[in-house]
């Protein structure tokens, strides 16, 4: 294989990290990895554990993919990425079992299913295979934190309404009427949809503001000339 011409490395910036948090949030913007998002966010604790596991897999696999990116031939890259991702999923599977069996039982098969989370393969293919080790790790961490943030958004609303608790602590009085639907799968869709609407609405208002202020400056310029 011909090695590409050496390029000037752009430095690692904060923006690479924050892109995953908001502008390219994996769930709210890119809509990647929705299966675990809908399945395990019926409580905040599950959501956070899932987020932590995903961060681990994401950072680990992207680091390895990025480190080996000149070594891996193009023809077998997907196979290789899957092997690497599966490795980290197996690791996290063991680690969670070692840390808390209860958490492991609560997350069920979804730990193993991280391996097919398209977010992770997507980032390996789209980012880590083309960028330096440092940048890949930072970007993966950003994506992972963004993913966890989104899971926590869903998990907190669903747990609060679905069982009146937050992280297992009773928030409302004992008399609270749980919205059973929120813990069930439809609740996941409804809450995800509501968050999407909210974020899109905020975004639209912001762009509108920018456009109208632009228009205003244009007008004044015209008047002056």
């Amino acid at each position, binding site marked *: 294989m011909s090695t590409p011409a050496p390029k000037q490395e752009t430095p690692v910036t904060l923006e690479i990290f924050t892109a995953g948090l908001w502008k390219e949030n994996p769930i709210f913007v890119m809509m990647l990895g929705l299966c675990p998002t809908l399945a395990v966010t019926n409580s905040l604790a599950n959501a956070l554990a899932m987020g932590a596991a995903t961060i681990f897999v994401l950072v680990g696999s992207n680091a390895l993919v990025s480190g080996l990116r000149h070594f891996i031939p193009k023809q077998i890259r997907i196979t290789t990425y899957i092997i690497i991702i599966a490795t980290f999923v197996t690791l996290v599977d063991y680690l969670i079992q070692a840390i808390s069996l209860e958490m492991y039982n609560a997350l069920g098969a979804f730990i193993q299913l991280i391996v097919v989370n398209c977010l992770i393969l997507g980032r390996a293919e789209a980012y880590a295979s083309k960028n330096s080790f440092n940048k890949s790790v930072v970007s993966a961490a950003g994506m992972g934190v963004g993913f966890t943030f989104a899971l926590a958004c869903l998990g907190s609303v669903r747990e609060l309404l679905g069982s*009146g608790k937050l992280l297992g602590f009773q928030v*409302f*009085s004992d*008399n*609270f*009427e749980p*919205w*059973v*639907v*929120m813990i*069930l799968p*439809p609740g996941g869709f*409804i809450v995800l*949809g509501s968050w999407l609407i909210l974020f899109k*609405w905020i975004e639209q208002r912001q762009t509108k503001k920018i456009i109208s202020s632009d228009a205003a400056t244009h007008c004044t310029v015209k008047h002056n000339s």
Partner: protein
Amino acid sequence: MAEKSPKIDIRTSPYIRRAPTVPEIMRHVVYALLPICAYSVYQFGISALTSMIVTTAAAVGAEHFFCRMAEKRSTIGDFSAVITGLLLALTLPPGFPLWMGAVGGFISIALGKALFGGLGFNVFNPALVGRAFVQAAFPVAITTWTPAFALNRFSEFIPSTLAFPFMTADPTAEWTLNTAIDGFTGATPLALMKFQGVMTDAKDLFLGTVAGSAGEPSSLLILLCGAYLVYKKMLDWRITAAVIFGTFITAGFFHLMNPSQYPSASFMIFSGGLMFAAVFMTTDMVSSPVTPLGIFIIGFLVGFMTVIIRLFGALTEAVMYAILFGNAATPIIESFTQPRIFGARRDKD
């Protein structure tokens, strides 16, 4: 700001007869619903009244809110949100906690209507979307029935009505015991049929002296109000007829197979919310089909599903799911049943 262009109304012929506008139609539907509401209040007292006020207010408020968010002109003037709120209240138990009713009213508009782009674009009947949500969210409260014609229904609320927001409703069992006229257990005719094999007399069902949702008991009144809308040409009686026909055929079939296990067709038609749904829900102009054959297919499907779910499903009341199912099937049925345009030839493939 764009200049306002002069408004030219373009209509198809004939030009003399004016088609009723949306607010006009909706207003007449509200008129038709009012006697049912009044009878419901007479039956269940002030709890039913407050329930209607709260759901309607929530629905109208939600409509206004979403119009504002979308920066459109508020459409609460067309009465469609009022209808949604009233329909929802009439499908809920009379003692349904008010805060849950408000949630239902909001969800009706939010998920049932605003999400699809407002009136005219909704796939499902908004009131039923709201009811399906509260059914899934609060399964206990929505199956807590209180007796009709309780003695002090005009002076005090059903205890569950006034539940504090987000709190569980007070149990109504004791209240029911104290106020019921005689031997009332809080079970609807459908529940009695399903779990105890007891059939309620068709006359009671027809006149509405049984427990049930706020608006479902009296089939007679519902039919009269429906007749008014049919007379005003604001209701497609063919849908109602098709639903009842579908129920009749399916229930009759099972009844003939095994009369001791399956109730008669007349029981199926007059019990629960079927009559109310057939007249006011399936005929919703937006979510019901328009092609003649489609009307029949969907109506029959709704009736068929209702009987099947009632007899073999885990739930006692099934009309809601049957109609939502029918709503979902409407677009595809319509596309299959497009009438041939006069003179047009069918394409070979």
